[in-house]
Each structure stands twice: as structure tokens, then as C-alpha cells.
């Protein structure tokens, strides 16, 4: 099939960007979305043009590197997957596809479809860890964790840090990301000693990075490739309230 692609091109962080239209011919339905972009880039390189910069690595939906808005939706229209897992059989011959980078104040564009997501690392540095020393820990089975809690913690831990929640949110809020992290540690006994300090520090760090606040639209949940539930935002708010009362 043949597709018309409207792709955001931007030389660098301070350069103005614009949409450039390309035609992608010979697209097979078995291709992944990124393989379709690879093919476009091969053509551009051969024509002596600059290939489109886009982030990708594992191409198995788990590293969280790929980060494109496809027709206005983070990672495309199919729920529960990253852009690298999106396959071209979901498109029709003759479709026009708009491809943009994540748009958020906290994620400045580096080039074309590549953005700087180091703000998420800095939020993690504020408290997204358990302060244990290597080696100085009890036996793994010394503290039982009810299966239900372990499963819920795993639901939260599934976050791949791609930033789709931020890109999808009209406030560019990172609450789903934060909620996932805070929930995981709040649900496990290992996270409890730092429970109060952690949530206050992480929320403060996120505010400082320029992420917006949550207005309960739940677009983040719809965009999340790991289908992380907004109930984790609810737990984040409870944890924040609990911490505020204690602090």
C-alpha cells in the first residue's frame, strides 16, 4: 500500500520546526510502523536527504525508547502497545498519517521526533528507590508479601517510562508515571521506610521539571502502552495526603 506521511521535522532544540510531507510506497501490512519509517529513511538517504530522526531500541515494546504521536495519539490508535509494536495492517492504502514528537514543556525536542526525557530520570533521583546497601539485606522470603499486593505492585511496576502519559495529557502531567512509581513502593513492605519522604520529594521534583497537574481526564491511561490504571494516580493522591498530614 501507499501512504502519505506528514512528519514533524526540526533541526535542533532552538530551530523552528515544520511538517514535511512524504510518500511511502510499497508498504507491506506485515511491517511494523518503525520498519515503515526505516524504509522511508533508506529512500531519503539514497536521495541525499537527511533521514528522519526517531528514537527506537528494543522494538519489542519494553524499552520505552520509541515516542511518536501517530495521528494525534501517543504510540498510535491501538491500545496497550508502543509504536514499535504497531503494525501496518492497521492502516489502509491511501491513508494520510501525521507523525509528531511528544509535546510537553518538560520534554524539549532534540531533533525531529526525538525529545529529551531526562526529566523523568531526575524525578526518579528525588526518591524513586529503596535505600538499601548492596548485600546488607534479609533473605528474600523473610518478609512475605500477599500475592494480591505483589500483583498490584507489578501492575504499577510495568511502567516503561516512555512518557506517553505526559504526551497525551492536555496538562503535560506526569501523574501516571509518578503514580506508578509511588504505588509500587507503597504496596510493598520494602518501600515503607521512605514512604512519606518519597512521595513528597518526587511530586516536588515533578513540579520543578514543569510537568502539569492532573485534572482527571484519564487520557494517560488510554495512551499508556502498558495499560497502567489511573487508580495508581488515586493511590498517589492518597499517599500525598497521608504524607502531608504526617510531615
Amino acid at each position, binding site marked *: 500500500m501507499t501512504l502519505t506521511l506528514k512528519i514533524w521535522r526540526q533541526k535542533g532544540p532552538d530551530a523552528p520546526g515544520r511538517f514535511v510531507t512524504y510518500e511511502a510506497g510499497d508498504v507491506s501490512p506485515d511491517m511494523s510502523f518503525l520498519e515503515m519509517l526505516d524504509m522511508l529513511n533508506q529512500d531519503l*538517504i539514497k536521495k541525499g536527504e537527511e533521514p528522519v530522526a526517531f528514537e527506537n531500541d528494543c522494538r519489542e515494546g519494553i524499552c520505552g525508547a520509541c515516542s511518536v504521536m501517530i495521528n494525534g495519539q501517543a504510540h498510535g490508535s491501538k491500545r496497550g502497545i508502543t509504536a514499535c509494536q504497531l503494525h501496518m495492517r492497521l492502516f489502509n492504502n491511501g491513508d494520510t498519517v501525521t507523525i509528531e514528537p511528544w509535546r510537553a514543556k518538560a520534554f524539549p525536542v532534540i531533533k525531529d521526533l526525538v525529545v529529551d526525557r531526562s526529566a523523568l530520570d531526575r524525578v526518579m533521583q528525588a526518591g524513586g528507590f529503596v535505600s538499601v546497601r548492596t548485600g546488607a539485606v534479609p533473605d528474600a522470603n523473610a518478609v512475605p508479601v500477599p500475592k494480591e499486593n505483589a500483583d498490584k505492585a507489578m501492575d504499577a511496576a510495568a511502567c516503561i517510562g516512555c512518557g506517553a502519559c505526559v504526551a497525551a495529557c492536555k496538562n503535560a502531567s506526569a501523574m501516571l508515571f509518578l503514580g506508578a512509581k509511588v504505588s509500587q513502593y507503597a504496596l510493598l513492605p520494602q518501600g515503607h521506610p521512605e514512604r512519606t519522604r518519597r512521595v513528597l520529594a518526587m511530586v516536588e521534583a515533578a513540579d520543578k521539571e514543569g510537568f502539569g497537574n492532573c485534572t482527571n481526564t484519564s487520557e494517560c491511561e488510554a495512551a499508556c502502552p502498558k495499560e497502567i490504571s489511573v487508580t495508581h494516580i488515586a493511590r498517589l493522591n492518597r499517599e500525598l495526603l497521608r504524607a502531608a498530614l504526617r510531615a
Partner: protein
Amino acid sequence: MALDSKIPSGPIQEKWEKHKFDLKLVNPANKRKYRIIVVGTGLAGASAAASLGELGYKVEAFCYQDSARRAHSIAAQGGINAAKNYQNDGDSVYRLFYDTVKGGDFRAREANVYRLAEVSGAIIDQCVAQGVPFAREYGGLLANRSFGGAQVSRTFYARGQTGQQLLLGAYSALMRQVAAGQVKMHARTEMLDLVVVDGYARGIVTRDLITGKIETHLADAVVLGTGGYSNVYFLSTNASNCNVTATWRAYRRGAYFANPCFTQIHPTCIPVHGDKQFKLTLMSESLRNDGRVWVPKQKGDKRPVGQIPEGERDYYLERKYPSFGNLVPRDVASRAAKQVCDEGRGVGSTGLAVYLDFADAIARDGEAVIREKYGNLFDMYENITGENPYKQPMRIFPAVHYTMGGLWVDYNLMSNLAGLFVIGEANFSDHGANRLGASALMQGLADGYFVLPYTLSAYLAGQEKVEIGADHPEVLKTAAEVRERNAKLLALKGKRTVLEIHRELGLLMWNDCGMARNEKGLNHAKARIPELRDEFWKNAIVPGSGEEFNQALEYAGRVADYLEFAELLVDDALHRKESCGGHFREESQTGEHEAKRDDDNFSYAAAWEFAGVGKPATLHKEELEFEYVKPSQRSYK
């Protein structure tokens, strides 16, 4: 130079304990005076950087990804082994050691493997304490499952994303050290060379992937945790940016590269679909716990699955290996799949696939149980293929997945270059000629959390502290060579894209040096690789400039290294005229087409020394001694 493996004396059960006591220490007040570079932030690199930072060293950590959390360790699905014996099913440190030496087809170093098994339990303790959400039973205790090559259930897991959860644990420890000021993190920074002064590793040369700036970083020791080289095959299950550059550059500066021909072909990947494909997707080996592998008994049987009656199906793994069944090790399962496809019994449009069937498991346990165990894998399969594996069997085929070879290291994980340490998949030591499932995560974390912090400290304590200035001639020369090489790459304005040349190299390697190898094919590859390399340096196209974010330049540099490295891999495969583990020489097989080792002539690790591009490398041998697990014909029948 003689290879001294520095294996401590004494009974194997006491070596590591005794060695830890014998190792010199750096006093706490002096630790802050040492600077250590750690390249790569996967399980090995992140755990090492975090642990060294915590000890008090000044650590500089580097990764080419935008965040340390994205290293390819995240893609590991199935699990991590540990000899906890929580299942009371007969596991022990000795059994894990025994299984790993045997699984590696007697080409690993016994003392290293024993230490790996010995620290395995502590890894699980560490990860749980960090908040890694391992699977648990209703009583709140940790759950286990079984994996290929073992008859006990010793694998800990976090749904189908164990690697990601373990890496997030190590990454969170790393972020904590970054916040504490002990580790300086350099993301989006690629190591392009190693600075070696008078035989000592003293630093690295890097490129800032955003600005393109070439920089030099100096240190008292350099640690490489930069993963494997599967992408020399172009199509592999590795992440698209995984590369051999860091280890290859170190090799060019004098570090020995050991056993490059030991590559692992994983039996359960989604088959290739077309010629525009860039990447293969792995389906976790854990699926073989419940899935049954089969092909039709009849050659060329193209009937849809539902029309092939039970009696006309060949569950060939269960038939050939009754005691291990579908859980035979990866090399055995891969070769068996190749064999049935070579016989014309492969399925799917290309005939290069076998079925992995869950019908019996679903009938036995119900769909809900199977969904709970493998739901994300089934979803991934459906996304990629458009077929529903709850309703029809998966089609799978082997693909390159992991590389056992890597830079040669001694028992202390130090290469032959003083001050250069190599950990995780990047070194060669623990898996021999074949790695067992769920052992890669174990090795990465063992090296980073529990081995390197001791051995690296001892190295520093045993050296006179030497300050190398940024204006040292060797430092300036190394950086100048990196700039020159980038300029050469950017001057390439030919007709073929780098990807096309990489694809051609990969196909050549897969055909001539893949699941099965013979002298004729290897000689063909050996002749063809230099031609491809010439073509690259004459006819490739590298767009853009060096002073900007330029993914095409990054990729060209990596492929240029593959074009040199491939030749060493083929030379190693040519010289090893035996079959062992992942290295199957057709000339050396038993009557039943099983790998036939030649212990009389090849019971050694082959460590190669660089002699120049296109020139034969010099072979150094580390003879392997098996005092505890006596080499035998590996049998999984």
C-alpha cells in the same frame, strides 16, 4: 603473553570466600580519591556503578540510550536463576554449578561458574529488598518456575518482564547514587575508544550523541558492561542499537577477545516475515514449560493445523529427549528445529517455522491460567503476526539471541589489559559454549553487585596511583584517531546505504556461520567479509555532519566495527574444528546428529590478540580444567 586466569587455590567451595579474604582493601577515606568509569548501564553496568558509588568511589557511568533504564537487559522476559531451593526439589549451589558447566558444554571456567552459583541467592535477596515485584504464591512467598536445561524449579520471575524489573531495581539504586553525588551519569554518550597508556587502561574517548562533541574521560579503572554482539547477524533479538563497538575498540587496543564463535541461537522467536525486516522478536523460553513443539510427520504437509490429526504430528523434542522433553537447552532445541525444517517438515509460508502449541495446556489448566502466566507474550505475538495463539499454535523459529564469547577476563573479571574490567555479556567467562535460560540476568547482577566491588577494589589497592593528564600524548592520539575515523565515515558519499551493507553481512553470517557451520561455508564468509568491508569504505552513504545529533553516523561506526569483527568470529569458528554448545561444526557430529566435542584438542578458551585489520589474529589458549564436573557427552535423553 601467558594467560593467567588467577583462579585461587583450594577446594572449589572455598575459593571465593578465601579469595575475598586475601584481596586487598582500599580504606574508606581513600576510596573517594579513585575515579572509575563504567560503560553500559544494563544489569551488569548499573549494578556495578551503583555498588561502586555506594562504596565511596567516584563513578562516571555512560550509556548511549537517553536513560540508563533502557539498556537491553530490559528485554529479558523469562527469569533469573538462583539456587535457593525454595521449592524443596533438590536444588543446591552445587547443582546450579553442575547444570551450568554441563549446559555450557564444558567450555566454561569451573571456578567462575561455582562463584556465580554461590552468589545467586544473594541476588534475589538484593532485588527483593529494592522492591522488585517478583511473582509470589498466595502465602506471600516467592514463586518459581522451571527453565530449559534444568530439572528443578529455580527460576524467579516477574511476569514476562523479569529483565525490565531487575534493571529498574539496579537503575533505582543507580539513581540513588546519582542523587547522592557518587555517580555522574552520562546518558546519550557513546564510548568510541579506550585510552591505554603503557599497558594500563586509563580512560575512554566518547561522543556526545546530541552535540557530537568528542571528549576524553580519564580514570583509575575502566569497566565495560556493554553487552553482546548478536547484531553482527543483522537480524537478531537484540535491540537495534546493541553493538560490538566498545569491546571491539578495546580489542584493537590490546584486550584479547575470547571465543567469539560461541553464539546462541534462541529456539523460540517469531519467524522472519519479509525482506524489509530489521529486528526479530523473541518469545520467552518459559513458553516451553507449557507449549508443545511439533511439526507434521509428513514432508510438505501444508494442511491447516486443525486438519492434521494427532497421530500425524511429530512432537519431536518429546520423542527424541524423553527426560527433558520440550525443556532441552537452547542449542539442542534450535538445532532440532533446523533439522525438521531441513527435512522439509517446516510450517508456515516459508517452511522455516515449527509449531509451539498450547492447546493441551489450555485444555488442562484453562485459558485464564495460561493468560496469567504468558498473557503479555501472547498479546505481543498477536500484535506482530495478526494471529491469536489462544486459538491456533504459535509459529516459531530460532534466531540469534545472545553471545557467550566476549573479552577475555581472569577470575577477577579483569582483561589482560591492567585496569580494564569486563562484566556481564561483554565478557566470555561463565557460560562456556552455551548459556542456559535465566542465567544471563544472574551473571550480569552477580558481576556487578557481588564480584566486581571486591576485585576492582583489590586492583586499585595493589597499584601505585598514577595521574595521567588530558594532555598525555597517548590520550591526545586516541582522541585524534576517533576524530579522524568519524571524518572518514562522514566523507562516505557512495551509493549503498549502511543498512543494506549490514543486511548483506548479516545474511552471509547467518548462512555460513549460523546454526550450523562447515569449513566450506566458513571459508566463503572469510573471503567475502573483506570485500564487503572494502565496499563499505568505498561505497556507503553516511549523511549529515559530526557536530549534531546524527543517528546515521552512529550506525555507520557500529557497522564498520561489525565488518572487522565478523572476520574474527569466522576465524574462530574455522579454527574450532569441534562442535560444542552453540558452535555446531557439521564435520563433528554423532550418528544421531548431536554435537560431538573434541576434548583432546579443544578443551580451551581461545583468546585472540589483534594484529591489524585483515591480518590473522594471534591465538592464545587458556586450557580449561575440570576437576569437579567431568566432561561427558552431553545428553538430555
